């Protein structure tokens, strides 16, 4: 049975620290959904999970599960499962007994708890591994067993704290598929912590972006990429393009030219952001710019696997970055036309004070 999780103005400060780990975080995770909490290292994302699980007490605010404030309820009584970055399989128990642990401590007999565990072992496609020692498993198998062990406790909420970060990319894809299978079979509410944008997009319905202990935006995957709430969110989502200018009557005016923006964008100073993946780049051309396009000159082409990243220079030293599909013929110095699809264009407020990080901090994905 999946459950709704709500955080209301949750703050957390550890000991006498001057800097709170969480500041006024409010988050609503509907029953049966999967939300990814995305943020850089030290942003407080794991603290959110520990607070929900009951491993840490909140300094202020409250955690509500299915309408009940769980602040005074011990971790073992919350009905919330958690898988950590390290699998933390009990080394003195076999694979099957690890999965049977929750039933065993719940009072079931050894035989009954093992029978129950076998179903979850099958679910993670390790049906024949029950008698093995946990030391005989690979990293991916260990994490599968850890997930099966958490699921065997029939949690209404499953918390995943970067469980796949230590796995290689191929194994990680397998685990994402497994998570999808589990959602179909068991439908628990899942909250996944990750610092990997691709992983968050691959497995979650919604993403909550957190930085410096603050929740910056909680939205659908598409909105986070194409309608970031702030320049910080845009950068954390890997946005590379930021053009300062002014919005006037539905147009963003900057050295780039006049670019149509969403109808509800208020007039005034604003930074135009657009995903590099959304920009369409013409082949080298001498033609005029299309209606929603701009003309510039290619200043640099870099390769990223099969794709290439092209940097296009404009008047006043302005640069736009665009991801090219394989095979497109552009080269340094050539004149190109860039089309900025209106549905991918967004304007965010000019930040007050410094914004940490750089546009596109992290490799383009």
């Amino acid at each position, binding site marked *: 049975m999946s459950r709704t999780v709500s955080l209301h103005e949750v703050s957390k400060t550890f000991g006498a620290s001057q800097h709170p780990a969480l500041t006024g975080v409010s988050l609503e995770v509907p029953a049966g959904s999967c939300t990814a909490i995305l943020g850089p290292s030290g942003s407080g994302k794991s603290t959110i999970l520990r607070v929900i699980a009951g491993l840490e007490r909140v300094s202020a605010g409250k955690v509500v599960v299915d309408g009940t404030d769980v602040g005074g309820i011990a971790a073992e009584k919350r009905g919330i*499962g958690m898988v950590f970055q390290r699998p*933390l399989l009990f080394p*003195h128990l076999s694979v099957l007994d690890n999965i049977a642990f*929750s039933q065993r401590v719940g009072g079931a007999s050894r035989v009954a708890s093992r029978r129950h565990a076998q179903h979850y072992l099958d679910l993670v496609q390790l049906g024949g591994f029950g008698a093995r020692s946990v030391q005989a498993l690979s990293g991916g198998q260990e994490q599968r067993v850890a997930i099966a062990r958490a699921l065997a406790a029939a949690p209404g909420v499953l918390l995943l704290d970067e469980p796949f970060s230590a796995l290689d990319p191929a194994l990680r894809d397998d685990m994402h598929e497994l998570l999808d299978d589990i959602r179909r079979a068991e439908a628990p509410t899942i909250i996944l912590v990750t610092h990997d944008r691709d992983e968050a997009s691959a497995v979650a319905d919604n993403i909550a972006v957190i930085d410096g202990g603050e929740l910056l935006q909680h939205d659908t995957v598409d909105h986070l990429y194409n309608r970031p709430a702030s320049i910080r969110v845009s950068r954390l989502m890997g946005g590379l393009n930021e053009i300062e200018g002014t919005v006037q009557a539905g147009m963003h005016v900057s050295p780039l030219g006049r670019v149509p923006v969403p109808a509800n964008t208020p007039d005034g100073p604003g930074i135009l952001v657009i995903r590099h993946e959304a920009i369409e780049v013409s082949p080298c051309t001498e033609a005029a710019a299309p209606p929603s396009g701009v003309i510039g000159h290619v200043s640099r082409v870099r390769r990223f696997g099969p794709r290439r990243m092209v940097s296009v220079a404009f008047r006043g030293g302005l640069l736009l970055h665009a991801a090219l599909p394989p095979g497109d013929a552009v080269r340094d110095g050539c004149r190109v036309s860039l089309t900025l699809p209106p549905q991918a264009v967004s304007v965010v407020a000019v930040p007050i004070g410094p914004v940490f990080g750089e546009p596109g901090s992290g490799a383009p994905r």
Partner: protein
Amino acid sequence: MVLPALVPAVFVVAGGVGAAAMQSLGLMPLVGPVRFSADAYTGQAEDLFRALGLSLAIAAVSTVIAAVFGVGTALLIVGGRWCGRILAATSAATVTIPHLIGAATVGLLLADSGVLARVLGVPPELWPSLVGGPWWLAVVAEYAWKESAFIALIVAGTLITRVARFDEAAALLGATRWMRFRFVMLPLALPALAISSTIAFVYTLGSYEVAWLLGRTYPEPLAVMALRLFNSVSLTARPEAAAAAVLTTLVSFLVVGACFWALRKTALWR
């Protein structure tokens, strides 16, 4: 790499035990001819068995008490609260106190005219015979106190480095505090507990000063017996002293062997 440490250790242990064994069998007499004989064992067999029984009883009881209190203290230390830090510091300080000083302290505390009897206002004739009494309670108390601190530090070290996160994982699987102790903490701490308890047992079995200071003159534990015979004015008692020492060593080897045999059968050791 370990050879420089191994050679002197083997030389001292093998040489010491070998010399004692040879002396106990008449092959290394201080006076008289060399003659193989088991007289040092058979001639005092009754005393040896009585001393062995007493030594085993003192070592077993004090080790069990030390293990129970040691594990409890370790759990409090791992708990990370202020009382845990105080206990850790107290345990560390306790380990550094020599047993002879500890025995004198326990004697001053528990004797019929000791601090405790005076504080409680109990006259000496009504105070139970804790020191020098028939149940060797002061001896057991001293060993249990000192060795519980040693066991606590060893077990706490294991629990802190290996078990803290497992405890959280178990809690999130619905295990109560007792269940976590029973099904996770104790099994994971078992190798450290078994090894430290074995060390405490073997040490208690082989040390003489506490029983010599706080115990009765008869019957006497093996180690006290060995010391008394060794210091005897009669040089012919040396083989008998060596026999008591060899018997202590044999029992110690057996206990250590049994501990490792049992540990090797556990999943954790494998």
